């Protein structure tokens, strides 16, 4: 299991022991984290699982692929350099300690 922290739009922090191989979005929705809609189900097709990645670990994340970069054009909240779609972040031991701040609006 890999420890991740989500910060909900309300500011509440939710620490989660995440299963390897799942996406950060799946971990969040299955544990009831508020603010992630994930309308498309994780196929990188809707931009409603937008998070800002924070912490030292963020720099170690594999870079987003072209499909995610293109879909990030569609986020409803402000797009920042640390914007990611959480359905495209795979849980691996390397991202232990990652903080994901959930965007304040998704659509």
């Amino acid at each position: 299991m890999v420890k991740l922290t989500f910060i909900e739009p309300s500011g509440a922090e939710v620490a989660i022991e995440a299963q390897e191989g799942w996406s950060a979005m799946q971990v969040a929705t299955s544990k009831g984290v508020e603010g992630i809609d994930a309308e498309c189900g994780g196929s990188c097709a809707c931009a409603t699982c937008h998070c800002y990645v924070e912490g030292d670990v963020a720099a170690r994340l594999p870079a987003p692929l072209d499909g995610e970069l293109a879909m990030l054009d569609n986020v409803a909240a402000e797009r920042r350099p640390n914007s990611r779609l959480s359905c495209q972040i795979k849980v691996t031991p390397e991202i232990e300690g990652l903080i994901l701040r959930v965007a304040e609006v998704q659509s």
Partner: protein
Amino acid sequence: MFVFDPYSPAIDADPFPAYRRLRDEFPCFWSPEAGMWVLSRHADIVTALNDWQTYSSAKGNLMTELPNRAGATLGTTDPPRHDRLRGLIQHAFMKRNLETLAEPIRAIAAELAAELAGRDRFDYIGDFSSKFTVRVLFAVLGLPMGDEATVREKAVLMVQSDPVTRTKGPEHIAAYEWMQAYAARIIALRRAEPCGDLISLLSSAEIDGDRLEEREVLLTITTLIMAGVESLAGFLVMFALNLADHAEARRAVVADPALLADAIEESLRYNTSAQRFRRCLTRDVTLHGETMKAGDFVCLAYGAGNRDERQFPNPDVYDIGRKPRGHLGFGGSVHACLGTAIARMAVRIGMEELHRVVPDYARVETDLPWMPSSTFRSPTRLDLVRA
């Protein structure tokens, strides 16, 4: 001895008791009748959906696959080819690009609902949902009007399977062939006169400088029509059935149509029409003490995962306040349904307009006639009476 036969009429009618035994006692179950393993717990299905390298779609994704289709459609290819193909198509299905369809869809629904005014009893499927879905699909894809009834009939037939032979029957294959010929006619029309729509785009699309194979174009469009007509219609029926059976939920969404969105999500969890899809293993996998071998097929029973109390408390209760995120009603991960946004929009608008004319209703028959299908689940007739 426990048997799980996805071809059995008893499973068409009510798979949920068997799903419970699968989850609790046989979470990695070999079904000789299906000729494949069955995964039924939510977490196991999510893990399989994510691990496309192991659980491949390239040998087909329908429980009873149509001939020569695997490898030529979105649902039957793996990344990276899948992602490139999906990239060509998904723009047309994004929520923000569908907004212009809301009013045409509402007009279709309102016209069909108006025909129900003054009728105490009607067949929801024959009189409303099947006409609605096929006309919505024709509007979305810009198909020429005139063939709607036949397209609907063939789409419904091609997803079915024979409960006795446990395969596609000649009538199902004939419907599939008809649909391919129909798609070929539309492709030829668009190539002769491109109009910037999805089918025009796909008909001349390239990946890495290469034209799509003709089989990919033909079967992708055939599948879009099949899914658009049958999957959307099937879910519309399940949703109406849930509202007919749950008076409190029905009254809540009629009083406040904004609640329809939550009710749709709960119905996608409670009894999605997309009950079971399959994958093929590329390596041996040991799970819950069973070893599944490379080359074995694996059924991902979405309908079972959606009733898993390990994920959803009181899973057999229909509760529109649940907000069941992470449900498997549209599958999930790379192969999650392409049509999620259009489906949610069409179902919401369709029911809003139906409820204006028929706000209170109940089902007539306790035992419904169910479609014979190893993959999808919905009744073939749903008589409703005004309550």
